[in-house]
């Protein structure tokens, strides 16, 4: 019985829609730069990413809590699930889907800082992640 059930399940799983690859790290960076009116600063992005912040949820003081301090390395969600690397150099799917990037900035900035990230902060982070 187990075997008979497996096939339709695999077929059903294959129907999940693929990523919408509608942007690139460079396009995202210039979009956020235009919004903030300032040039991105990758070093500031790095400092922001590695820093311990306050104002967010106690469980997640830093981006590093889940992503580690090396964006080329895999991280780990608090549930033990692996998070693929954030740097496009290590994971070409990153920073190619604008809705996905906005969704995770929205969630993660609120978890870590208790507020949305500014366009300038997003430009800096994208520029740093793309610099590897």
């Amino acid at each position, binding site marked *: 019985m187990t075997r008979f059930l497996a096939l339709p*399940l695999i077929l*059903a799983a294959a129907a999940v829609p693929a990523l919408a690859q509608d942007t690139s790290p460079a396009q995202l960076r210039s979009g956020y730069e235009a919004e903030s009116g300032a040039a991105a600063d990758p070093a500031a992005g790095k400092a922001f990413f590695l820093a311990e912040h306050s104002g967010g949820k106690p469980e997640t003081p830093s981006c590093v809590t889940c992503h580690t301090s090396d964006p080329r390395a895999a991280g780990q969600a608090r549930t033990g699930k692996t998070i693929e690397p954030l740097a496009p150099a290590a994971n070409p799917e990153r920073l190619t889907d604008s809705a996905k990037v906005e*969704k995770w900035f*929205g969630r993660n900035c609120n978890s870590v800082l208790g507020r949305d990230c500014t366009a300038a902060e997003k430009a800096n982070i994208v520029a740093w992640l793309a610099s590897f």
Partner: protein
Amino acid sequence: MIRRFTLILALAFPAAPVLADDDYMPPVTHPATAEECSACHMAYPAGFLPARSWQAIMGNLENHFGEDARLDEATRAEIEAYLVSNAAPRVRGVAETATPLRISELPWFKREHEREVSARMMERAKSMSNCVACHKGAERGYFEDD
């Protein structure tokens, strides 16, 4: 063990589409739920929790077990509707007035996992919410011993 679980399933989910296998719970087939609820942990099968639990979870995604898991309203509502319509009609040992937020704190779950889980397994899994660490087939709906 398997037989005992069959009984629990039969009592707990009389109307849920439980298939022939004893340790089987239909996995999430709804695309938005499978996509959005699998980033931080596996997409938990709807049939493990009652409708009121899914409503409570989906009504407070900004404060989701210590994280922000917010979604746009259209996606949020669509996922809630799927989870609610595939929820467990009743869960054994849980009063109609109680709204459990965790599968891993349901009475049957605690009974099944109390004695059977070794310290070594727990260390590898990190959290009881990480079903996949111990149940290799969890994403396909299988919670057998492996």
